[in-house]
């Protein structure tokens, strides 16, 4: 006989979207490393979903080079999500990617009720199209405005000003990956910590203002620094 009437907490959908730079400069080790990094981030993302009785996580991917297109267009539940490798080549049409994203963030295409979407922009260069116009279109959508926006800069040529503008919150800085190993770490952080914060906020530290943002994002841990000359750095 059943002990209790059953039941479980209602879940709200959370839309998570990677926006990935696939321009020519990403060719070679960068794009290979990125493919691995995202592949390795899926299990930790599934763990975030498992630990959270309130959220159901759906993933999509936008890629941009010469123009922009959906790499994975169907919002896919995180446990069913499968990464397929990206290739690189072409320009850096970041603005077009954000315009496409704006379409996906329209009230009529989004679920009636949801958690703040999480948008993670990954780029190694300068936009070659109208980035500001794309961002403006995205921010004109209520869900675009409500989205947690995170960016990851790959290498020294990435335009940090553009990536900062995408985030739109002075207290959150773009994560800078200085080498391919670092990229794996940064992508893993960007894929899981903001996801957790947007879906199931943990203990709130005293005095945190978060730049007036609608979601409390914990600061990324500081990069490891050597404490003695004998340390491997």
């Amino acid at each position, binding site marked *: 006989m059943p002990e209790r*009437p059953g*039941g*479980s907490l209602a879940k709200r959908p959370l839309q998570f979207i990677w926006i990935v730079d696939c321009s020519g400069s990403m060719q070679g080790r960068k794009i290979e490393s990125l493919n691995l990094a995202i592949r390795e981030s899926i299990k930790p993302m599934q763990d975030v979903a498992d630990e959270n009785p309130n959220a159901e996580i759906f993933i999509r991917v936008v890629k941009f080079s010469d123009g922009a297109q959906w790499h994975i267009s169907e919002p896919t539940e995180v446990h069913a999500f499968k990464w397929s490798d990206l290739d690189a080549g072409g320009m850096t049409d970041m603005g077009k990617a954000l315009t496409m994203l704006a379409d996906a963030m329209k009230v009529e295409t989004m679920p009636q009720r949801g958690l703040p979407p999480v948008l993670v922009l990954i780029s190694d260069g300068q936009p070659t199209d109208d980035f500001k116009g794309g961002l403006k279109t995205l921010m004109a959508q209520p869900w675009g405005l409500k989205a947690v926006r995170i960016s990851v800069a790959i290498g020294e040529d990435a335009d940090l000003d553009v990536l900062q503008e995408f985030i739109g919150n002075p207290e959150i800085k773009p994560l800078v990956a200085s080498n391919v190993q670092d990229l794996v770490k940064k992508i*893993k952080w960007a894929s899981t910590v903001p996801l957790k914060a947007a879906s199931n*906020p943990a203990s709130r530290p005293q005095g945190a203002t978060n730049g007036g943002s*609608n*979601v409390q994002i914990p600061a990324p841990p500081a990069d490891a620094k050597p404490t003695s000359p004998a*340390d491997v750095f």
Partner: protein
Amino acid sequence: MNELLSPNQVVKSGTGQPCKVIKFLGSGGQGEVYKVDWGGSEFALKWYYQQNATPEQREMLQRLVSEGKPNDKFLWPEDLAFADQVPGFGYIMRLRPPEYKSLNDLVAGKIQPTYIALIVAALELVKAFRSLHIKGLAYRDISFGNAFFNPATGDVLICDNDNVATNRTTKPCGVLGTPDFMAPEIVRGEVQPTNKTDLHSLSVLLFYIFCFGHPLMGRKVSNIRCWDTPARTRIFGTEPVFIFDPGDRSNEALDKQRDPTGEAGGWALVYWQLYPKFLRDTFTKSFTVGLRDPDRRVTELEWLNTLAALRDAVFKCVCGSPNFYDPEVAKTPGAHPALCWHCKKAVKHPFRIRIGKALVMLNADSMLYPHHMADARDYDFSTPVAQVTRHPTDPNIWGLKNLSGAKWVVTLPNGKLKDVEPGRSVPLAENTRIAFGRADGEIRY
């Protein structure tokens, strides 16, 4: 960006003993947790991220280590830990055994404990936080994530005790709590966490355990598209209304027809009707007057009395599903008990015994404890003094067996007196009176 420490790395405890890292277990908002070998036994070590390894945190931990745990339900800091090569510090605590599950798993429907196990877990949680508050401390971050329980027994373990501090301390508090569990006055930014805000968080936790929903998430939530910090601030801080507030239906629980997602209290509505009025009244007090006035919140002692009475009120329907006896219905002329929630048939109450203020259902597996026998109740249900038993030869006859060390004097329904020595039983029959020594009971049907 994880793994501040590596396997086989040796850190030192505050008392100078070596503590060897075995493996990484997980990371949280403030740091990482490792399994370690400390003095030949396995323990857990939490190591703080650099930005969280503050002098205030270290001082707080030092104080908690010297203070000692309030009771054995806490995975309390046993000692601090330091390393020569790694900045910051950590603390050592007992490991959580694998049979203890997160309350997250309960509300996600992944584990199905019995009602008695759930009530025991609730009682244990309240007792644990009471023992902490009695010591002059405040926990300050009661939530799903910080309490674990054994679904087989209801035994609990409370972790993340590093935010515990002296109640009403004026020092910076580190945390404000977990958003869904914060008292409204914290959400509004008016106060820091105290033992009074702990009481609100505790009531929210109990509501989740018994009603599978948040007490403040009703109709108002169904009108909110994006569930983020501003939305939480409105629902939990500036416009909080209980979903079963008898005087304000603006945030009432919506059934599955009106809100198919169930988010606006759909499950709470199903569970709410199962419970006796005394439990519903305690929740109503918590989330109406207690919501607005921290000095009128339901105290731990009120919760203990309510939960102990709930434990006593459980009875099995003939279909086998547990239901609750409601004394209020029994004494209201013309009122009928609710149908069994499972088989939807009229319930048949078992024998029950009235001992002082307690009314205990005598199910096939019921026991009585010293708690039932004394004026000074201890809410301890570990060593029984009486047990319902079946007659060895006639399965239709039920009795109450004396498990105590002293004889009972029984007045049978016909008025005759009879001694019931330890190990012997008295048949269950209406109007039988039992002098247990410390209290008198009367069997009813």
